[in-house]
């Protein structure tokens, strides 16, 4: 019974979880992506995706929706987070809670409610499907943009800003040269947290107006018709795109600041 407990053993649960629920499923997806119905190796799923104008069009549409959602979220969230973080208001936490509370309510419920509101406002949702999707997605993902921005902005070193004013910077210059660069990690983590789910979240689109496929629904439709191979290949393609994007945005990050972006 010469049993020594080492700190390294604490990793075992996590490693087991990782292998069972992250690595193994990924391998299964990889297997399906590069095989055909009979189980032999093929690149047909890959070429099939890129040779069809429909699937490429869907990829384009998904990216368009994700980009627009992210930009709208950023445009709304930045001023809000800025005011929340920088103002001297006493009831700041209550204000922050107002932004966070919607996240506690069931997502489906909120979208159904939003559908009713939008219907009241414009009548027929099918006339402006793109706009409605963007509104729905923005509504849903906004907290994910505000939180990291709020965190970085509150953690910002006040003295740097004072130094900027001392050195003769105007308000605009101070914002552009000090606040904006310092909040970049928050922007990057907010953008990642909104962009990536917005690429694949088709539930909102389905619930508000169900007519055009985006990547998520495309994968779903392949799976529901038992074509697991094409569906897996599209998942892999999406994974690669997301990986590339994350890798590209990493270029903006600096090691010191990374801690500022909590989420």
């Amino acid at each position, binding site marked *: 019974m010469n049993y020594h407990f080492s700190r390294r053993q604490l990793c075992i649960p996590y490693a087991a979880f990782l292998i069972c629920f992250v690595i193994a499923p990924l391998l299964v997806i990889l297997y399906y992506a590069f095989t055909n119905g009979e189980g032999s190796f093929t690149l047909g799923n890959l070429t099939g995706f890129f040779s069809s104008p429909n*699937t490429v069009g869907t990829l*384009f549409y998904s990216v368009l929706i994700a980009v627009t959602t992210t930009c709208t979220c950023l445009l709304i969230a930045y001023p809000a987070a800025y005011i929340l973080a920088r103002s001297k208001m006493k009831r700041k936490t209550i204000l922050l809670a107002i932004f966070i509370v919607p996240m506690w309510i069931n997502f489906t419920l909120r979208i159904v409610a939003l559908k009713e509101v939008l219907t009241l406002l414009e009548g027929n949702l099918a006339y402006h499907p793109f706009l409605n999707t963007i509104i729905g997605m923005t509504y849903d993902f906004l907290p994910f943009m505000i939180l990291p921005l709020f965190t970085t902005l509150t953690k910002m070193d006040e003295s740097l800003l004072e130094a900027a004013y001392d050195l003769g910077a105007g308000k605009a210059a101070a914002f552009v040269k000090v606040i904006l660069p310092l909040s970049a990690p928050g922007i990057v983590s907010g953008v990642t947290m909104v962009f990536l789910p917005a690429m694949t979240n088709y539930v909102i689109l389905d619930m508000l107006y169900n007519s055009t*496929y985006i990547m998520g629904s495309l994968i779903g*439709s392949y799976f529901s018709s038992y*074509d697991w191979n094409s569906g897996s290949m599209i998942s892999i393609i999406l994974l690669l795109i997301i990986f590339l994007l994350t890798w590209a945005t990493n270029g903006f990050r600096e090691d010191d600041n990374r801690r500022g972006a909590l989420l």
Partner: protein
Amino acid sequence: MLQGLPLGAPMRENLIVGHAALPQWNFIAEAKSPSDVTVLKVANWEEYIDEGGWDDEEAIELDSGTITSKDGLVADFEAWYYETYGKQVKVEYSTYGTNEDLYSQLTLGDTFDLVCPSEYMMMKLMKEDLLQPLSARFFDPSVEYNYYTRGVSPYIEDIFSGNEINGKPWGAYMAGYMWGVIGIVYNPEEVSDEEASTWSILTNPAFRKQVTIKDSAREAYFPVLAIMNQERLLSDEFKNSPDYHEKLAELMNDTSPGTMAKAEPILREIRQNVYSFETESGKADMVTGKVVANLQWSGDGAYTLDQAEADDYYLKFAVPEECTNLWFDGWVMLKSGIKGDTEKQQAAEAFINFLSRPDNVVRNMYYVGYTSVISGGEDSQIFDYVDYCYGAEEGDTIRYPLGYFFSGDDTDEDYVITAPADQAQRQLFAQYPPLEVFDRSAVMLYFPDDVNAELNQMWINVRCFNFDQVSGQTWLKVILVLGLIGLVIAALRFRHSIFKRPVKRGFYRSD
């Protein structure tokens, strides 16, 4: 002590009380003889069986007695089975959302004894030889408890024995459950009866973005075929041809590459015109007035009309003149579940029979809203129930014959309902469409896998975003927005060189 414990329906409550007070009794029973309990695994559609819990106001008072439900049909079946056969059965009941879900569950290794797929999935299962045939005992009309054989509508019986897969009639493997046609639920204030009487309503520009259809390639393909062949389907020559029904069935199951190629543009046109492709929201969108017309199965149609009526909102149901899809769901036993176990098969068949008992049929029809394939045979309860729901004495009434369903003879005077005139286009019509509607109906058969894959590919092509749908103006907007984003990114990237201010004269930097 245990054997003496009655499990019959009237004592059910006592049993529950006893169970709470003396839990060890039940425990001993299970430990003593677990093999005495037959476990029956049943899978059905969601909300497709009476689950009980009716309050007193919901009781249906027929001449033959009052029908109400407290525990639901599954629990009542367990009690009834013990009373009737003296054996215990435990039903493990589960539900699924679509035929395809059920099929995936079966291929992924779930075993069920008794499931309730739609006709085309039943055909697929029959083709793949996964089904256990119903026993000869099940079809013996002299047995009192064979409510299915004794009560199934002769009209349905004809369909079930007249169609074959692998040389065996459908009825050898499947006992019908609910059935109907597809039609259009519409708002009479916005849509005229003529407009709703054709499948072209789906492409009608007058209702642009105000109609919905099902989010399923199969369901959408049927109206497309009808629109494609509209002139032919409506021509007298076609209608009066001696082999009209065969021709109609052939036409509505046409999946040749040429037809599919022609169907795709029509489907695209429908996509541009419809409000959405719905899976669940169709009924609600209709009731709340978001859309003015909705393709619907007849049972759901009746339900939608009921819901709307509760809001003082009157909708109608129509079956287009071209043709309609006759569908039905039914119970089949799976070989993989039954595994030749006669006890289990007996329990499964008894379950079908219990659901086919006229009073249970009424309970189910009230709860689910769909129309049962059971007409009751000698028992008049089901006809009484229809009469109870729709019969009227005063005012503007019509004679609504239902003989084709109840006795096999549509001129049968015993089965005529005197109903309010508007029922000719409302719930009664949706639940029991007249014979002439079935005359123009075709069953959509099961398509082989390669055809299904093509159909799905067509559906994906239609549903995907296509560059050619985008107008030049939209392109311009998109390019502008993208350009703007590019500019912002460039500005951020090169902010150091852009915002760098020249060093002012007179200042000397220390570094």
